[in-house]
């Protein structure tokens, strides 16, 4: 019985007297497509912080393929294969799209310390970077500075950096955040095309994306897991609907489930 890609058990985090995450347990098999939803203030951001290592948890454990991550900081977790993207893009804005991805490819391959060979001549690295660029559909923007491309495409570069690091577990923190409605399509396509062997935990508000993407959904409310199930189960649940602000929630879920 092989170890799950990501296993979190009993994660708890307190800020002073406030319990932000209580006894959270989560299992992702390799290739999982798992979504995490919940109203604002539910503790999703804290949970992502705990999983990625930016925040230290008070109780519980995290393991990637059986390896305990408790002592590892964010950079070490990245090296172990647990990579996250950010809700607010954290990119290298004056550099080109290709350079952004190249940086991650180069570091992952241990090549960033090479002082002598021109970066352009490192064939393997360039090819890999180009492959990621193409996979995300960013070809036309390859040599353009990130600062100059559309915000939706910048969000793709954010994912590209993560992919370049060859993650085994990927935490996508609200990849659609801030994207104008017209550009969401490219994001959807990119997420569909993510490598099938990566386990992905998607944190999202946009139910359209959750429906299309996830085979399993966990609902987080006030720091605790309310339920876990398939998208249809979750969206049909009366409890979940009432939690999402009563009428507004019903309207949101009602229309989404009508697309079944």
């Amino acid at each position: 019985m092989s170890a799950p890609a990501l296993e979190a058990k009993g994660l708890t985090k307190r800020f002073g007297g406030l319990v932000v995450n209580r006894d959270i347990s989560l299992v992702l098999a390799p290739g999982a497509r798992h979504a995490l939803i919940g109203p604002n203030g539910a503790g999703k951001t804290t949970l992502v912080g705990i999983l990625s290592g930016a925040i230290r948890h008070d109780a519980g454990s995290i393991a990637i393929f059986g390896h305990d991550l408790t002592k590892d900081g964010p950079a070490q977790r990245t090296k172990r294969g647990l990579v996250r993207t950010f809700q607010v893009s954290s990119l290298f804005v004056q550099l080109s799209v290709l350079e952004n991805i190249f940086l991650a490819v180069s570091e992952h391959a241990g090549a960033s310390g090479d002082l002598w060979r021109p970066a352009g001549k490192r064939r393997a690295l360039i090819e890999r970077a180009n492959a990621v660029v193409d996979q995300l559909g960013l070809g036309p923007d390859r040599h353009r500075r990130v600062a100059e491309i559309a915000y939706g495409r910048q969000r793709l570069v954010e994912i590209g950096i993560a992919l370049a690091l060859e993650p085994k577990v990927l935490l996508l923190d609200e990849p659609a955040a801030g994207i104008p409605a017209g550009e969401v399509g490219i994001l959807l396509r990119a997420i569909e095309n993510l490598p099938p062997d990566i386990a992905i935990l998607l944190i999202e508000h946009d139910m359209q994306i959750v429906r299309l993407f996830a085979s399993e959904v966990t609902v987080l409310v006030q720091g605790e897991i309310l339920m876990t199930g398939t998208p249809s189960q979750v969206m049909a649940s009366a409890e979940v609907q009432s939690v999402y602000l009563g009428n507004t929630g019903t309207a949101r879920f009602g229309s989404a489930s009508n697309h079944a």
Partner: protein
Amino acid sequence: MLEPVWWILAVLVYFIFPKHLAIASSILIMAMFAMSFDVVLGFAGILTLGNAVFFGVGAYAAAWIAIGGWHEAITGAFAAGVGSALLAGALGPFVLRLTGLPLIMVTLGIGVIFYEAANKTAWLTGGDDGLSNIPLAPLLGWFRWSLSGGTAYLYALCWLGVLFLLSRRIMASPFGVALQGIRENADRMRLIGTPVLRYLVVSYVISAFIAGAAGALWTQTNAFVGLGVFSLDTALDGLVMLALGGIGGLYGGLIGAPVYMLVKHFSQEWNPYYWMFLIGGLLIVVVRVGRGGIMGIFRRLLSRRPVAS
């Protein structure tokens, strides 16, 4: 494509202005100094006002080496550069943890300390009088150091060329790209796993070597070194020259240094202080117009021309 122009012009200066080679050498040396700033500021994004320390250490080291009996210039300058680089290697791991104003403060403070130290140890540095009569053997055993400065000019030009090519090579490597990544977003680089502090120290060391070699050349071509090499003025000069020319891309210092020094030189004939007006004004304009400096202005002008299809 316009690149070779600078170098061709530099060689032509030797033939066209044989009587002005002394100032021309100074320009080349300051260009090298400004280039050292570019490595650390333009690529790595380290805002330091302290590179004069490395310039000064290199300058005095070259003097001591020559006075101490080793008269070969090229190795002397190289050794001086290494001396500065070692100093940078020692200071870097502490200083480079800082950013913003604290970093500026610390680098300024180090500069002041070195200046005062040099001032107070007259037995070592000659104090106010400096060190003169620095004996140097003919270059490569053949080229004598003439009063007209011809040898000195070509010597400095060769050094500049070599260091320029080396710097360009390093900045084009994966390491150079990583440095730019650190400049843009150090936190993300850390997350990716880059040893940020270590890379910053390496860039600091490289920059110090270049500044130190420039200092050594200063001593060698002037056969003199004084406290001025450590002064705040020198540090600011380097930064201003780079800013005028354009930061990043390595050519900024090469363009800014001649502009700065020539403005200074010619306006001093009207009035010793007009040049500060001009340079100050230029600097304000450059910042308002955009940080590309003179190079940036050229680029914008060139890109306005219709592109042949």
